[in-house]
């Protein structure tokens, strides 16, 4: 049985549209303009146990609605959702015992009280047996490095410390699935790195299924091998990153540097016509090419011939691995020089 099973899920919002001008405001007061905004349009997918899946997409794609439906706080308008074999909305109270939820922008900890008090309350709420709680608590305190903050009121913690405590709080009852919505929002690069290491470690050790959504795509890229790409309430892609990159990102980037500045100008004249010079600075240049018009085999052949020429004096070149950022930019903000991603679907 998959950890998450979604079939033809649909969610619509009724949104009041404001009319312009004074009379528009007056008439809108008595007869408001209601428009239906489709947040999720018949989406289906499955997530297996122990997987770490990233949910990505531009603003307004429906990510937040999907997460809220999956954690049981939003009622879907159609379709079926089963998480851990349960219906999240209608069986909410029983269901939420099996999941852990972290909304990076909303701390569930009691602001005015020490962290340990919030943990104790959660122990009572989830009815965790004392011995089990003691072990999980010790594990989380050690893994997240919380010991020195437990006695401090939450309001006195830094953002990073608070987020660590929040994620630890979501794990206290040993959930089957962890939903992380923007878990690194506002964190600096060091805190993000530590947090991601911990989440990865916990997934490996406890086989917790992790469903993560973040605007910081490097977070998703680092943690998850699989992703769901959402746009305007529809799934554009669901599967491994590498497949998504292969499918959507045709444009690749090649960086070349010569020992002398003059040589790079000479090199520009020799590049194949399929390549486009993206930038040229000093002794360095960046080339872009469409991998459908210039295969990697051909590129390697051309490079070999260029490198072997002593007069060009090339000392460095490398082919960039497309990132998730490139993928999103290619799909949602296509460069006029690049074939639109939609044609490749």
């Amino acid at each position, binding site marked *: 049985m998959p950890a998450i099973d979604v079939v033809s899920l649909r969610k619509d919002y009724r949104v009041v549209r404001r009319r312009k001008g004074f009379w528009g405001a007056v008439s809108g007061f008595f007869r408001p303009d209601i428009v239906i905004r489709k947040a999720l349009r018949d989406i289906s997918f499955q997530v297996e146990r122990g997987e770490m899946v990233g949910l990505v997409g531009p603003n307004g794609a429906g990510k937040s609605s999907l997460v809220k439906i999956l954690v049981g706080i939003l009622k879907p308008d159609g379709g079926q959702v089963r998480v851990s074999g349960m219906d999240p909305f209608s069986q909410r109270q029983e269901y939420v015992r099996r999941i852990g939820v972290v909304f990076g922008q909303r701390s569930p900890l009691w602001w005015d009280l020490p962290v340990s008090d919030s943990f104790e*309350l959660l122990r009572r709420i989830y009815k965790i047996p004392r011995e089990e709680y003691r072990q999980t608590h010790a594990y989380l305190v050690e893994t997240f490095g919380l010991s020195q903050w437990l006695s401090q009121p939450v309001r006195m913690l830094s953002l990073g410390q608070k987020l660590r405590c929040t994620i630890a709080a979501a794990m206290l009852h040993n959930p089957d699935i962890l939903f992380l919505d923007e878990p690194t929002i506002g964190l600096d690069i060091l805190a993000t790195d530590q947090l991601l290491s911990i989440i990865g470690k916990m997934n490996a050790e406890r086989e917790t299924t992790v469903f993560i959504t973040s605007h910081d795509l490097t977070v998703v890229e680092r943690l998850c091998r699989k992703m769901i790409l959402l746009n305007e309430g529809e799934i554009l892609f669901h599967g491994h990153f590498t497949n998504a990159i292969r499918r959507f990102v045709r444009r690749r980037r090649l960086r070349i540097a010569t020992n002398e500045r003059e040589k790079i100008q000479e090199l520009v004249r020799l590049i194949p016509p399929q390549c486009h010079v993206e930038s040229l600075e000093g002794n360095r240049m960046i080339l872009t090419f469409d991998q459908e018009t210039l295969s990697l085999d051909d590129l390697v052949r051309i490079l070999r011939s260029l490198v072997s020429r002593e007069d060009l004096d090339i000392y460095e070149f490398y082919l960039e691995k497309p990132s998730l950022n490139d993928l999103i930019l290619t799909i949602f903000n296509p460069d006029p020089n690049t074939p639109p991603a939609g044609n490749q679907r």
Partner: protein
Amino acid sequence: MTAGKYFTIAKMSFLRLTAYKTDIVIHFFTYPVVFASFFFFITGAFEGKLHQTGYTIPQLLTYYSVGWLLRMINHHGADIAIGQSILTGDIVNILVKPVHHHHYRMAEAAGKAFGRIIFYSLPAFFLLSIFVKRFILVWDATLLKFLVLSLIGFFISFEIQYIIGCAAFFFTVNHQIIWITDMTIRLMSGLIIPLSLFPDFVNRLLTLLPFQMIYYIPIQMWIGKIDAAGFSHALVTALTWLIILHLTGRWVCASGLKRLAIFGG
């Protein structure tokens, strides 16, 4: 045990109150000022015309004093907290836990009310007993009856606040609704004017509503204006209202959750 987690929530709510000592101190000193202003107002407004009101000066002084002692307990702001959590979306922090929203909020209110009894009402009561000679003290069965009616009144007050707070599920502007209802309830519950002083038809109308159970009826009990038969009648009426309001609150919350839309992260 299910009650255990709600007891802990109540305890946490109490501890939260104690986290802000300055707030406690400020309240402790400002409430007597409100009391004092009422004493001057009552003696000025009613002295000489008492035969028209049906109250003696000590009864009126006690009426308003006890009213404000209860107000300290009942005015815990559950409506504002619930409304805000819905409007800001912070309600998700409760909904993702295995708790009943209604019971969670009730436990929270009870914890806060307990703190307010300890820090505000009891000290104020002792100050009144010591320094205000005309304050009527009751130490017999009447006190017990008063406590029972006040306890039910507290829960009725909570249920009304819960419903008003949950109105945020349906209306985007909630603070106006909360403010207007609070003012109306103050008036219709007898906190500002004893209900018997209203014109007859208004009085009759107000006795059909649940608000009198929050202040008017318990205070009438304290100052000896309700007999044994009246107590039984008040008890049954109060409990009936409590059940009706509780069920209404659950229904409003369940309907609201179905249409809850928290946009954005």
